[in-house]
């Protein structure tokens, strides 16, 4: 058991445990906070996978923006739900079954794949993944189009979100 494996296992356990807490805790603020923990765990994993830029982006975007957004949303919708009452709906056991089956199915499918137990190939040092990533994102031969489309998507989401949630004057 190498050090990396141990780190991985601890991180994985944190991730899974906090994920379970996200979906089971009654208090919504707690749920959002547990999400932040999960996201941190994911960032650690990215780092383990030598995807440093992704890890940072995860922290900045997901935790710094999205999770905060969640906390805002929770705060804005707290009137009726005073963290009392059940937080699971009536068919939660069926959902558990489905989730379990999904996991089972995925595991089964993946285990039949030949590369399932592959090991990571070596990574030549000096490979500046960030530079490669940046070049790929703006290169016409590569992914500039999805990049631009993604920015349009963000614009649309922005406009849409503002419009949907907009409150006219006097309307409450």
């Amino acid at each position, binding site marked *: 058991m190498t050090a990396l494996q141990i780190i991985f296992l601890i991180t994985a356990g944190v991730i899974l445990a906090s994920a379970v807490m996200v979906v089971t805790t009654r208090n919504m603020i707690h*749920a959002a906070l547990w999400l932040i923990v999960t996201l941190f765990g994911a960032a650690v994993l990215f780092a383990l996978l030598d*995807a440093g830029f992704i890890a940072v982006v995860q922290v900045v975007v997901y935790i710094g923006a999205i999770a905060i957004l969640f906390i805002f949303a929770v705060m804005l919708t707290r009137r009726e739900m005073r963290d009392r009452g*059940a937080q699971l709906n009536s068919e939660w056991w069926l959902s*558990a079954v489905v989730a379990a089956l999904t*996991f089972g199915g995925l595991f089964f499918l*993946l285990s039949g794949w030949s590369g*399932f137990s592959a090991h990571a190939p070596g990574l030549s040092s000096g490979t500046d993944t960030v530079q490669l990533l940046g070049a790929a994102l703006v290169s016409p031969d590569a992914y500039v189009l999805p990049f631009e489309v993604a920015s349009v998507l*963000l614009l649309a989401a922005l406009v849409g*979100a503002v419009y949907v949630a907009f409150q006219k004057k006097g309307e409450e």
Partner: protein
Amino acid sequence: MIPLSWYLVLSAALFSVGLFGVLARRNAVAILLGIELMLNSVNINLVAFWRYLDPTRIDGQVFAIIVFAVAAAEVAVGLALVISVYRRRNTVVAEEIDMLKW
């Protein structure tokens, strides 16, 4: 060395947990939390595959970046919708928003 399978199993499990959250939580915001978990599991999967199959190609990371963008957009819009529904109906319980019922 960490075999790929560990990452894959992890992401599968994370995905399932997120699925459970989507299907079983009452609060609409909690459903969106579940969706975030699922997206994260996807990202983990993508990056793992990038690292283990062909790290010289940067395509895996690009895919992950795009997923980030999409997730952000989706969360924004989704929460805007939840807030808008909350304003009209005074509830965030998904079960109570059933106007498309027959």
